[in-house]
């Protein structure tokens, strides 16, 4: 794994538009609000060189850059977020934003005329959709619509569009509107109708961002840059591509049954695009339809997957049990979000772990793995498919809103370097097919419709060992229950051991799983760099846990489990490895960890040692 540097403790935003678009005011407002709620802020206004540069040209772009967060000293080098009010603003700035940045554009201004003015190629600019988290918004027309019942003249209406953009950015970064509202009330104290109009538009922009589930992306730098061909990739795309890669490697057609849900919809959307690779995406009527069509496709011999988020996984839980008892290969991707219930659908959280491990009726063991960065979603999706196909089992892959939406540069692998996948098809020449005959890994063989002579029936009732006929025999039920359990446990021999990063001789072990990797590794590296000895073990394999887990855990005086829930992984470790003592650091705010809070917690524990 290459080293990741995560910097989300600070965010750089750039507002850019025509000189008349009010970008300076917008930037100042955001800066002031941020400062007032306790952030460090550093700003950098940059006006157009020409005093009266022609509207819509690159020369006429006015910008305001600001950096906010903890320990901010500079306005930042490269923006994480760019607000581009027209093509010229985009053209002027897109070369400077960070990889995978969030770009908000006013689609109303992206007309042919404006492209000509900006002197750029519309098609070319569209490529940004591949590399950045583009949030499209018809800002001008929404602003007009917002003010259609006011007395203002058309020009004044259009002029408030900067407030719409500001409202959106406030929403994305959870800033309160109060300060700007007060500012507008004061500024336009004598033109009440203008104040009101601006405030209305500000709120509408905020609400619009809520409504369209606008989400920021984060990005990660690699500090060790290996040779190779790179691209930017976000977690959802990487997940989709990892599944397609596994299908190709296993020489199987690919099927995805799914139903849209934030923040997992993009997986469905990506696979829908991939008709060129023969992939079949089926937008079902609900989540149950999503998983059941996939189970059908698995029965028919496809590499099949289904993608969803928390509430959708709840709906799939009965059907997942069917995949367990029929022992068919299936990948279930769960992109976690804030719960319970609908909760905070656009925010990140790791609170579906228990559901993934235990959320089914009966003894229903399922392997669970978790990706930890946007790009390794590719690898863990591939890995989930490999395990599913080689061990004939459904596999649950956990990601979350943070990495699903986050982007990072990624060294593109070559398919020839990807591991082989050995599907468990029964040999075409076998004389007989016994559906529940198991090999030494407890794995049964796969026969699919169309294979002559291997006709058989599967289903949700308990079945007889070897033959797979329905069986109510008590001892058989116990035997099969244990075999299914054993099969999942045996996967331990087919997964890598747990690695420890940081200082291996430290007294304190920082433990995490899934998407907290970036922050934890950054914090641990920085602490070790500053002379504090800390080790870090990060889990991608959750059920089964890596073979050396007990051994690793027993090497430290204190173990601190960091996670974005109320301690689910820590409790799971207690259940599986009860002899260690675990400290918890839980955060349930819909936000990622910060490097600072990790360090504070570790230092506090160190002091107590």
């Amino acid at each position: 794994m290459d080293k990741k540097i995560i910097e989300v403790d600070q965010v750089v935003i750039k507002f850019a538009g025509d000189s008349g678009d009010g970008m300076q005011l917008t930037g100042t407002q955001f800066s002031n609000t941020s400062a007032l709620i306790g952030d460090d802020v550093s700003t950098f206004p940059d006006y157009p060189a020409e005093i009266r540069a022609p509207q819509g040209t690159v020369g006429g772009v006015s910008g305001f850059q600001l950096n906010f967060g903890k320990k901010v000293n500079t306005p930042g080098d490269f923006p994480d977020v760019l607000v581009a009010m027209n093509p010229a603003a985009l053209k002027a700035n897109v070369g400077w934003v960070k990889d995978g940045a969030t770009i908000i554009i006013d689609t109303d201004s992206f007309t042919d005329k404006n492209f000509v003015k900006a002197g750029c190629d519309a098609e070319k600019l569209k490529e940004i959709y591949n590399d950045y988290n583009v949030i499209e918004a018809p800002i001008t027309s929404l602003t007009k619509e917002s003010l259609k019942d006011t007395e203002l003249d058309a020009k004044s209406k259009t002029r408030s569009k900067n407030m719409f953009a500001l409202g959106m950015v406030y929403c994305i970064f959870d800033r309160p509107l109060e300060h700007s509202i007060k500012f507008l009330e004061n500024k336009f104290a004598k033109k009440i109708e203008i104040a009101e109009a601006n405030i209305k538009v500000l709120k509408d922009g905020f609400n619009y961002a809520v409504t369209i589930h606008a989400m920021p992306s984060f990005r990660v730098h690699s500090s060790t840059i290996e040779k190779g061909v790179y691209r930017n990739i976000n977690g959802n795309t990487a997940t989709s591509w990892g599944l397609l890669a596994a299908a190709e490697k296993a020489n199987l057609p690919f099927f995805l049954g799914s139903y849209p849900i934030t923040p997992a919809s993009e997986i469905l959307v990506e696979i829908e695009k991939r008709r060129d690779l023969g992939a079949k995406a089926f937008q079902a009527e609900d989540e149950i339809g999503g998983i059941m069509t996939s189970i059908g496709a698995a029965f028919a011999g496809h590499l099949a997957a289904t993608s969803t988020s928390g509430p959708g996984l709840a709906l799939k839980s009965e059907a997942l049990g069917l995949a367990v008892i029929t022992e068919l290969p299936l990948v279930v991707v769960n992109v976690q979000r804030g719960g319970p219930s609908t909760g905070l659908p656009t925010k990140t959280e790791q609170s579906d772990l228990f559901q993934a491990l235990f959320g089914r009726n009966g003894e229903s063991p399922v392997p669970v793995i978790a990706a930890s960065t946007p790009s390794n979603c590719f690898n863990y999706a591939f890995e989930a498919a490999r395990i599913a196909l080689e061990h004939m089992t459904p596999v649950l892959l956990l990601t979350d809103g943070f990495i699903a939406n986050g982007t990072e540069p990624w060294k593109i692998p070559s398919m020839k370097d990807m591991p082989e996948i050995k599907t468990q098809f029964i040999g075409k020449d076998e004389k007989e097919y016994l559906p529940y005959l198991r090999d030494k890994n407890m794995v049964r063989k796969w026969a699919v419709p169309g294979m002559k002579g291997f006709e058989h029936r599967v289903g949700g009732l308990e079945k007889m060992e070897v033959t797979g006929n329905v069986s109510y025999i008590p001892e058989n039920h116990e035997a099969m229950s244990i075999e299914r359990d054993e099969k999942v446990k045996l996967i331990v021999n087919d997964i890598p051991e747990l690695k420890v990063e940081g200082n291996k001789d430290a007294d304190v072990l920082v433990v995490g799983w899934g998407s907290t990797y970036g922050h934890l590794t950054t914090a641990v590296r920085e602490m070790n760099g500053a002379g504090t000895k800390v080790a870090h073990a990060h889990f991608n394999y959750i059920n089964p846990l890596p073979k050396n887990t007990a051994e690793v855990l027993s090497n430290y005086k204190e173990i601190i489990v960091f996670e974005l829930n109320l301690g689910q992984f820590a409790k799971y470790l207690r259940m599986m490895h009860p002899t260690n003592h675990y400290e918890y650091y839980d955060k349930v705010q819909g936000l990622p960890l910060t490097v600072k809070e990790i360090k504070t917690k570790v230092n506090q524990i160190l002091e107590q040692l």
Partner: protein
Amino acid sequence: MADTKYNFKDFKSDQEIRWCPGCGDIAILMSVQKAMAALDYDKEDYAVISGIGCSSRFPYYMNTYGFHGIHGRAGVLASGVKTANPKLSVWQITGDGDGLAIGGNHFIHEIRRNIDLNIVLFNNQIYGLTKGQYSPTSLFGQVTKSSPYGTIEQPFHPGELVIGARGKFFARSIDNKVADTTEILIQADKHKGASVVEILQNCVIYNNGAHNAITSKETRDDNQIWLKHGEPMIFGKEKNKGLILDGLNLKVVTIGENGISKDDILVHDAHQELPYIHLALINMAVADGFPVAFGIIRSVEAPSYEVLLEEQIKDVQSRSKIKNVDDLLLSGNTWTVD
């Protein structure tokens, strides 16, 4: 297609049939086996998919690929199988509870998508397997385990729901009419798209005789009309009764009475796109003085989902530069570090 021909016995599995003696399911099993033997597929290309219920035990008795799913999900399971492999002949077996209660949504959506499935709906107007609670097709007022004072719910008419979901094929039969059912099932398979065949099925234990008004010896000639495309809608012991259109409504007439001749009788057109007469035929009920309609009531051509999907895939493939995953990974913006 097939390189062998089969006898219906080739479709019997080695598992013992566990339905109650006299259960209508047993005859339906025979009809399906006969239909499969008559059709042109290789045996390994049949897939029989069900949910949960007495009727849904069906796949275990078939010597084909089979999947006994979970309650209500036969439709989506079958949709997945067929979409994945359009070459298969996929048979969805479902009950009035499985298909219309918990599985109602999948039912209307598979019909809307027009996936090429043979959907066989065993309608015994009761939950058999769970011992006799009312189902969405139980009669208004029916006393069952879960309606000790009579139900207060209007039942669905399955055919009407099929039309409501824009269905293209609907047929109706009776469990013990093996020859008729077999023929209908063969036609259902030949029809491309979602074909729904409702079979009135007798549950001897929890709803015995539910269909007696229609099926009993004494009344059946007058209370059944078997429709054939292109033929006049004639029925009755004496073959002298028929249906005509009276304004927008159907009406029963007697040939030879009131100047009605055979030529006045409505001719069945199963292929017409507009569903109004089909709906009227579906809704005919003995209580209203009509015979109940059987046979293929509606059969209209329309492209099926899995075919459109394959066509779209071919079309996109012919235009895209991305031929494999390496191409995909390298598509769009990339840069090289060396």
